[in-house]
């Protein structure tokens, strides 16, 4: 359900195209096969020349992609005055590592991180279990009308969060939960339909005979889930978990409507407040230090789990 909670733009709202053949494992995005740009059988000198030109263009583009991030990091290490130096300094002189100490006292950055961790972890951990168990039932268990239910849940993907946010706000206001983390956590822990969709899809590759055998041995469904299903679909769970975690971590619209007190805000709101507060004091190094700190966790997660992330994202749009 939290799919609708995450910020617009970063989430996938439309039903991604599943792989069509049952049980066919998706292909890896690995080394490029190089089959489209060059005619088959032509690995000539001209191909290599083009490669050099392409690499040069890609490098230039890569610099454009990275420059704003480097500029942020560079700014975060400057003195307030050095920010306005002309010509600009790429390598700060002097280097103000102290900005990264100062930033913790300048605003509720630590509590922001803590709140973001609480929300992201509780939503994704509990929500993943809810989603996986439901996906198991949808894929492998007998239940009348289960596909009708599944399709109705899928229809929820079509509803943009802004359309339901005002009534949701009223609900949580009536329950006295505004300015707590609950409105960000509760809708998520019931599961995420996109995750259910992908896990259900993935489960078609798990043979029914495996489950039947366990049933004959007298295993209950929860036990089958935890001992057989969960290990079998762990890669798919991991990939979906990471994507969901990053989406919740980066969420902004739901936090901004629910959280008012500075110490209740999530990290994304905290840095936005930093931005508003310190820009008027022209303390750009402080803003950039806070923003850079906010970028780091997801950046690390991405670099560590790059392969899984890239594969599952690619899957979401591929034709299988």
């Amino acid at each position, binding site marked *: 359900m939290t799919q609708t909670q995450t910020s*617009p*733009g970063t989430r996938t709202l*439309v039903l991604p*195209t*599943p792989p069509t053949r*049952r049980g066919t494992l998706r*292909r890896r*995005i690995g*080394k*490029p*096969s*190089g*089959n*489209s*740009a060059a*005619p088959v059988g032509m690995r000539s000198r001209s191909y290599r020349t083009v*490669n050099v030109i*392409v*690499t040069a263009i*890609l490098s230039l*583009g*890569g610099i*454009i992609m*990275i420059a*704003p991030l480097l500029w942020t990091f560079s*700014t975060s290490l400057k003195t307030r005055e050095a920010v306005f130096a002309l*010509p*600009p300094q790429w390598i700060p002189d002097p280097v103000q590592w102290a900005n990264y100490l100062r930033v913790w006292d300048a605003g509720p950055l630590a509590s922001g991180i803590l709140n973001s961790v609480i929300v992201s972890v509780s939503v994704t951990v509990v929500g993943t279990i809810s989603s996986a*168990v*439901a996906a198991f039932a*949808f894929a492998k*268990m007998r*239940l009348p009308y*289960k596909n009708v239910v*599944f399709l109705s849940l899928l229809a929820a993907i079509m509803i*943009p969060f*802004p*359309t339901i*946010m*005002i009534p*949701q*706000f009223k*609900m949580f206001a009536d329950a006295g939960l505004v300015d707590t983390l609950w409105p960000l956590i509760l809708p998520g822990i*019931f599961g995420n339909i996109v995750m259910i969709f992908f896990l259900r899809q993935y489960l078609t590759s798990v043979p029914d005979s495996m489950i039947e055998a366990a049933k004959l041995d007298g295993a209950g469904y929860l036990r089958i889930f935890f001992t057989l299903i969960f290990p079998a679909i762990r890669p798919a769970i991991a990939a979906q978990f990471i994507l969901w975690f990053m989406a919740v*971590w*980066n969420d902004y*619209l739901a936090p901004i*409507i629910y959280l008012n007190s500075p110490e209740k805000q999530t990290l*994304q709101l905290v*840095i936005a407040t930093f*931005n508003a507060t310190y820009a008027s004091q022209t303390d750009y190094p402080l*803003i*950039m230090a806070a923003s850079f700190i*906010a970028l780091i966790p*997801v*950046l690390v997660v*991405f670099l560590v789990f790059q392969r899984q992330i890239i594969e599952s994202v690619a*899957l979401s*749009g591929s*034709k299988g």
Partner: protein
Amino acid sequence: MSTTAVRRSRLHRREHLTAAAFIAVPVIGFLIFIAYPLAFAVYASFTKWNGLTDPVFNGVDNYVQMWNDPYFWQVMGNTVFMMIGIPIGLLLSLLLALALNRKMRGTTFFRTVYYIPVISSLAAVAILWQWAYNGDFGLVNQVLAFFGIDGPDWLQNAATAKPAIIIMSVWKGLGYSMLLYLAALQSVPRHLYEAAAIDGAGALAQFRHITLPMLRPVTFFLVVTSIIGGAQIFIEINIMTPTGGPEFSTASIVWYIWQKAFNYLEMGYATAMSVVLGVLVFIVTAIQFQLNRRSQFSIE
């Protein structure tokens, strides 16, 4: 009835109950947090409601007000205008994917580099681009100055504020569509190219008659998701131009809904606009479902 049949039906019932319990969790979540709010939104859109007292039915007043609200049309116009970035981004990302699909060194590295903005928090990215767009000391104008161009104060200027946000959005989303294009390119069966090569088709003909048609589904998917995402653009507007931009030039529909609902407490009016937004998104999604089902989507 034989004893085995009785036993089996009992087993089935147990399975049904367990399965129902398993799917009950997301179903309850759906009913509480999506279905009910949606129904309430539709109802509240026909009421005068300030969020503090109970909604009072006022017919289609909100929709009439919307029709006559020049700001509503302006934010709709702004939102649509900022979608110019979508075709630009798609074209660039296709070129990128073609480049990265070549047999050469460094493709994995470049893929990572171009994907970093995608995973970065939009709030942080908006903050750093706001700083990069600073008229006097921002990175963008420093680079332009290097080429002898005197850059504008991007976000303070009605003529440049929208392009500034578009450029940032393209930068942010490029890696995502690049990745999907790359995956699609790599799933084109090799034998198609081999057969074409035997028939004497050159690289360009192969691209036009094999690659482009094979990329159509993913392009369609990207267009639809981008339109839906673009219709809900909010974070970058809220952070980079907190007041809706110079001459209201960057205010988007979601930004306006948010303003009306939570700053002006015109919840009824805001809900009506959000219902219109929901209907528009629904139409776009329904088209995608329809066309998609024809080609590959099936639920057994």
